């Protein structure tokens, strides 16, 4: 069994606009997990719990197998980097490089070369004050600083918002490097389908403060297909995993199955060759997952 870098055990947290939990989730070590769900579903709350910016009302958070109800010790905090959705105001008056020096003090593994290299690639000048940066530049600084900290656990709350496509690509490559070379575990909250497709190994879906579970990305996507066949009502009744179907013309029917392997085997047995097979997009899969059609443990 895979080791967990982080666990939320039966966590409940009441927030202004929603209540999170009880949530039972874990992040497997050295994998990238994408946290997906609508706005206000509890994604940022999960992240904040993971850096103890807030504490659970009930349940507990476990870091690398240990719990720290009295505060994360500096050496554990130094293994975690977090790029929040909204930044901490105290640093606003600082120049970027001074803010970086402050962080370098807390992170013994801080890599100046990597920091400089990333700012250079992002084309952000290090002598500017944080509150004078554009939204995208600030985001780039935060990402550079998070990666320079050489974290073992990297938490990114919608990191790509405000990034241009070139910076986005650099970020994706650098996150990958961090996982590959430094053995980091990554949690990435995102609305961008392409980000999930390219980066994620596991998916966690949250909806209205509740977790709908975790799934391995490929096996989830592999199950879902939309298929067109010559009309055969009897066969359609027997096909497994069908969650919607429509008669497209007198001679043709279209259906969506969540058990493609099973459906394909039955079609093959019946000697029926599909007219068209389409893999569902991630957002469509998410919708079926949210309305309860896809059970995941």
């Amino acid at each position, binding site marked *: 069994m895979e080791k967990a870098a982080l666990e939320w055990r039966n966590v409940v947290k009441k927030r202004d606009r929603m209540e999170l939990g009880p949530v039972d989730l874990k992040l497997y070590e050295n*994998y990238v997990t994408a946290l997906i769900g609508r706005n206000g579903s509890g994604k940022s709350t999960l992240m904040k719990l993971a850096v103890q910016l807030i504490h659970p009302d009930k349940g507990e958070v476990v870091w690398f197998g240990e719990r720290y109800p009295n505060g994360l010790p500096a050496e554990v905090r130094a293994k975690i980097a977090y790029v929040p959705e909204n930044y901490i105001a105290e640093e606003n008056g600082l120049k970027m490089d001074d803010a970086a020096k402050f962080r370098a003090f807390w992170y013994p593994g801080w890599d100046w070369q990597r920091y400089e290299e990333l700012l250079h690639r992002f084309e952000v000048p290090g002598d500017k004050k944080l509150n004078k940066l554009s939204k995208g530049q600030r985001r780039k600084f935060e990402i550079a600083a998070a990666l320079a900290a050489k974290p073992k656990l990297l938490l990114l709350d919608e990191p790509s918002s405000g990034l241009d496509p070139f910076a986005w690509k650099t970020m*994706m490559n650098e996150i*990958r490097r961090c*996982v*590959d070379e430094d053995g980091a575990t990554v949690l990435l909250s995102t609305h961008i389908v392409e980000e999930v*497709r*390219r*980066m*994620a*190994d*596991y998916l966690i879906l949250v909806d209205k403060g509740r977790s709908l579970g975790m799934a*391995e*990305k*490929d096996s989830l996507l*592999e199950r879902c*297909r939309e298929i067109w066949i010559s009309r055969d009502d009897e066969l359609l009744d027997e096909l497994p995993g069908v969650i919607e179907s429509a008669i497209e013309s007198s001679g043709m029917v279209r259906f969506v199955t969540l058990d*493609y*392997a099973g459906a*394909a*085997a039955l079609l*093959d047995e019946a*000697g029926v*060759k*599909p007219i*068209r*097979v*389409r*893999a569902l997009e991630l957002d469509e899969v998410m919708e079926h997952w949210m309305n309860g059609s896809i059970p995941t443990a």
Partner: protein
Amino acid sequence: MRIPVQINESSAEPLYHQIETQLRSLIVTGQIAEGTLLPSIREFSADLKCSVITIRRVYQDLENEGLLRTRQGTGTFVTKVDTDDREAYKKQIVQDAVRELIDTARSVGYTPDELRLLLDETLREEERR
């Protein structure tokens, strides 16, 4: 390096199997030469937009078959392929394609004789070009 694997989403064949079959044939036909260092599991998975879990399975299977070897700290390499194996694999690939052809012919009601006739005819046309 970027490996030319093409994923067919309409195929009922599992993803790991598609990748495995294509990578195996690239190695066996010598298109990826002996001694080549393959991309890391995470690089390859990003390239194909699949998870590392899938690629790890592919590398492990091909390692068990003796086509790949992983050296700790350096990466995964292509090992030597026997000439006999190479011939057998080539035959396998063509045979699979022929089976596919037979399925298609059968689905539109062609008899084996009709298929043989068509195959001969097409081969003659190709030779004349």
